[in-house]
């Protein structure tokens, strides 16, 4: 078991493309760190550099005290689970799991014992004599896990291991993998593009975009205090609503103009962020999460000047809650997520998603008043996209 240190890891391909720029991260012993980002952001490259399958252009990689930059993959004591599982088709499940041990010249008897242990953890004991082709997707995934855990490496690398599973199985395996990792206590570096996976599995989540680390923090911290617009929009589903707005002060009251509407902002909100005073009268980016909006018919007890008035465009009843989509007459902000759907909207109006409680009776076309929890607004600089917090 060991800590893993990435010190300004950089990857520049021969064609000049810079896939990773000075990625610095430290994984504590036994930590489950999830690296998450949109497709093509370099997260798999980062993982492959740690594995030794890609050269490190500059920067250092340490596992424990050992610098691994120039160590062969086989000597790194790192196990990896591939997105495609990469099982050996001609070997049985037992041979697949035992292969790393066989290469380490572990005796047949010890090997069998360890393979059985791993198979028990993964509930594969029944399948040991089958070939990968005879297994279901979930079982193959478990075999790939088995091959990684059987030799108790210093570090697990997982490259989107759940992306080939169907949705239901994915939810189950998510919990299983996290459970196994906790049981074994092996430091784990997990790559995914699915922010739900990241939030549910990771002790800590690192968000990366265009090869640059945006923020690394515990899932709750990431959700509550995103460092910039990208993290704010990327983490959370549905995404945070982000608009250009202007904060003004009149007679000691703060008002946020959002297009043709305005919200009163409590003093406490500004007091908690002294830097906001520098932005008075200037355009900035404001964000609020869908759950910070509520149908005023459901919660009538809300200050009148902290409400938006709008017309419901789309309604999705999910049972436990209802998602309502409507438009707000304020310019939207491009978060920079290439995977995000093109927002419905233009210069003047943009889409807003609200998560109403199931008690709501709104229908498409209704004009409703929407409560905004102004205490929970997020503010960002319009140019740098950085959070305004201090």
């Amino acid at each position, binding site marked *: 078991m060991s800590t893993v240190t990435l010190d300004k890891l950089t990857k520049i391909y021969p064609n000049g493309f810079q896939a990773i720029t000075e990625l610095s991260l430290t994984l504590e012993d036994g930590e489950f760190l999830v690296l998450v980002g949109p497709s093509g952001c370099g997260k798999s490259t980062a993982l492959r550099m740690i*594995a030794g399958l890609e050269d490190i252009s500059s920067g250092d990689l340490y596992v424990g005290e050992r610098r691994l930059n120039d160590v062969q993959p*086989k000597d790194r004591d790192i196990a990896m689970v591939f997105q495609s599982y990469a099982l050996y088709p001609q070997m049985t499940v037992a041979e697949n799991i035992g292969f790393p041990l066989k290469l380490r010249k572990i005796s047949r008897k010890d090997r069998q014992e360890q393979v059985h242990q791993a198979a028990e953890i993964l509930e594969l004991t029944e399948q040991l004599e089958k070939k990968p082709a005879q297994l279901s997707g979930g079982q193959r995934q478990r075999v790939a896990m088995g091959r990684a855990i059987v030799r108790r490496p210093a570090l697990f690398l997982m490259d989107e291991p759940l992306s080939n599973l169907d949705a239901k199985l994915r939810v189950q395996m998510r919990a299983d993998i996290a459970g196994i990792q906790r049981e074994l206590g092996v430091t784990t570096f997990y790559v995914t593009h699915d922010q739900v996976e990241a939030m549910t599995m990771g002790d800590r989540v690192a968000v990366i975009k265009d090869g640059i680390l945006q923020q690394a923090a515990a899932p709750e911290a990431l959700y509550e205090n995103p460092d910039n617009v990208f993290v704010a929009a990327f983490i959370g589903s549905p995404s945070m609503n982000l608009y250009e707005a202007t904060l003004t002060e009149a007679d000691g009251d703060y008002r946020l103009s959002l297009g043709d509407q305005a919200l009163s902002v409590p003093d406490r909100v500004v007091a908690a962020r002294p830097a906001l005073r520098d932005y008075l009268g200037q355009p900035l980016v404001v964000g609020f999460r869908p759950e910070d909006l509520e149908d005023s018919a459901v919660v009538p007890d809300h200050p009148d000047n902290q409400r938006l008035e709008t017309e419901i465009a789309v309604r999705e009843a999910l049972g436990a809650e209802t998602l309502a989509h409507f438009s707000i007459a304020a310019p939207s902000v491009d978060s920079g997520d290439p995977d995000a759907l093109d927002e419905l909207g233009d210069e003047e109006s943009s889409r807003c998603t609200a998560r109403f409680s199931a008690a709501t009776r709104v229908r498409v076309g209704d004009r409703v008043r929407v409560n905004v929890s102004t205490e929970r607004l997020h503010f960002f600089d319009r140019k740098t996209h950085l959070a305004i917090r201090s």
Partner: protein
Amino acid sequence: MRRSSTLSRIGLHATMLVLVVWSILPFIWTFQTSIKFTRDVAAKKPVLWGYETTANAYRAFWLDEDDINMWSVLVYILVVTVICLILGQIGRRVRHSWPWFTAAVGVIFVALWRFPKVWEVNDEYDFLINSIVVTVLTMLISLSIGLLAGYGLARYTGISGAVILIVALGFRALPRTAFVLPYFFGAKEIDDWLASSGVGSWDFPLIDFPGIDTLQILDTRLAIVLALVAVNQPFTIWMFRSFFMEVPKEIEEAAMMDGATRLQAFRRVIIPMMWPAIIATGLFTMLLAYNEYLFVRVLAPTEWTLPVAIVSLTGGESSRTITEAAAASVSITLPIVVVIILFQKHLVKGLGAGAVKG
């Protein structure tokens, strides 16, 4: 609806029947000729059935004795074949199959080695041995080079790899006849140099083959093998490359993460996945080497292989040589038919593998 589908099915089967008869008829004719007496072969009106059978032609082609009961030879061959098939079947079913396959090869080797000690054989028996040596060596060398080159070219995507592949394809497209004379003159140049420089008559302690006192290339089995390997290499490289292209790169990477060197990953993970490809490519190479006529005729004027030996018999008009040629044809075809039947599943799989992933 039903009627037309029945009709079309009958049509289909009739067509297939015609095609089967069409392809098998020459072989039946040859077989009949090989077991007829010369008077029936020479008859003006073909004797199609009811003729007296004999193994004279086989005896005359292979053996240097007149009063051998050919049934004993047939029993010898059948026993060897059955033993090999049994060993092979066991080998396919058990976990550690290599000892069984090796044993089968050993049985064939011993049978071939003992045969001339039991019966007096003609020169043609040497040509059979030549055929086997040339075929096996050509297969071994072509497959080894093809595997390594195919793997390299599948994984390396630079421009020089593409150039090599296109050049190889170009060579493949040229007619074989375009190569044979250059090979001949090249080999002759080397032989002349070996002779004039004296290197050819050096005493090499380690390669002191019995019966060889001078080193030369022309008129040796080596010449045939080298030429056939060169001609066949583009095919094996392309074949293996297309198979390797279908092996995901992650599998090697997984092996390396599991603790294998690149070579170990290749040998213990990739090669075992390639057996269908190796068998298919091996069979095609075998057919090429075993059936080769032109190169053998030109590069080895006296070290013949069986096809040349047969052709030498077909020139005459005498019905005696015709039955002998027929007997020879049947003798050299049967082993190949057996091998193809045993491996035809892999042959088809190998041919189809390039098309569909799976």
